[in-house]
């Protein structure tokens, strides 16, 4: 399997749903009951991935909005994606 990169095409599994309420974003896997809370940046990364399918698009949207270097933002995005994949909340498309 190729290593995860910001250009890896990702998909949200069929049983995974998302909602945001009062600043608390939660991703829930209905099949396993696993859920995951996201902070503001995580929520925006998730929205970018679920819309566009890659971390690059999600990072592009955030780049320059926060006081963080681009390489750090990419590293944080990859770390979040790995955590979500480990929990069955995100998967490589295909």
């Amino acid at each position, binding site marked *: 399997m190729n290593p995860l990169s910001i250009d890896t095409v990702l998909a*949200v599994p*069929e049983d*995974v*749903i*998302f*909602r*945001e*309420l*009062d*600043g608390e974003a*939660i991703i*829930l896997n*209905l099949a*396993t*009951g*696993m*859920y*995951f*809370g996201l902070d503001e940046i995580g929520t925006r990364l998730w*929205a970018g991935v*679920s819309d566009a399918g890659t971390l690059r698009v999600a990072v592009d949207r955030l780049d320059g909005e926060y006081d963080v270097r681009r390489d750090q933002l990419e590293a944080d995005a990859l770390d979040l994606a790995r955590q979500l994949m480990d*929990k069955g*909340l995100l998967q490589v498309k295909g």
Partner: protein
Amino acid sequence: MSQASVLQITRHGVRASGGAAAIAALRGTFRASACVRLTALLDPPLLSWIQAQIAGAEFEERAHGTISTELCMRRNTCLGALTFLINETRVLRFVEAVSGCPGLTAFAGRVYRVCADGRHFDSWHGDSGAGRQVGMSVNLGREPYEGGVFEIRRRGSTEPLATVANVGPGDAILFSVAGDLEHRITPMRGAVAKTACAGWFGTAVDYRDVVRPQTSSRSAS
């Protein structure tokens, strides 16, 4: 009564379109008729998933005093998902904007089914109390049904303020809940049952109390 889709709930969040003008139009209809139809509130992929879940779900007959008798879906993942998705910031703020009811904190509802077999009925009644402000019924059926038309009127009046046949897939009716209003569903006709998610947006319930009992307590963190 029908309006273009302004808000749509998907598995991955909420999509909004139309902006302030569209919301103002919905609010105008709501003020005039005490209700408004929301086209395709549930997006097609989410609706298909829900319909597949409902196809395998268990229902039990439930009577609400002398008001109504229906089949009610037992609590399951499908109801948990609907509750989870509807209790969304943008959904609550949208309903506030359309209805003019501020401070909505949660939606709580059920999935029910009514058939034209003579056993199921819904009489004129109000839903006020327990902090309920706005009612909502979302059509979850796979086929258009006959009868089962939503009507709302002032108490003491025989003329409905509005009559809405909510047969579009994933369409919803928002309606006002107040002491001087009452509503009903007209008798069903034909072979197709009506299946809907119905409930209330209110100010007295914490969404966490609504969502948590229906979703797993397992945490991924």
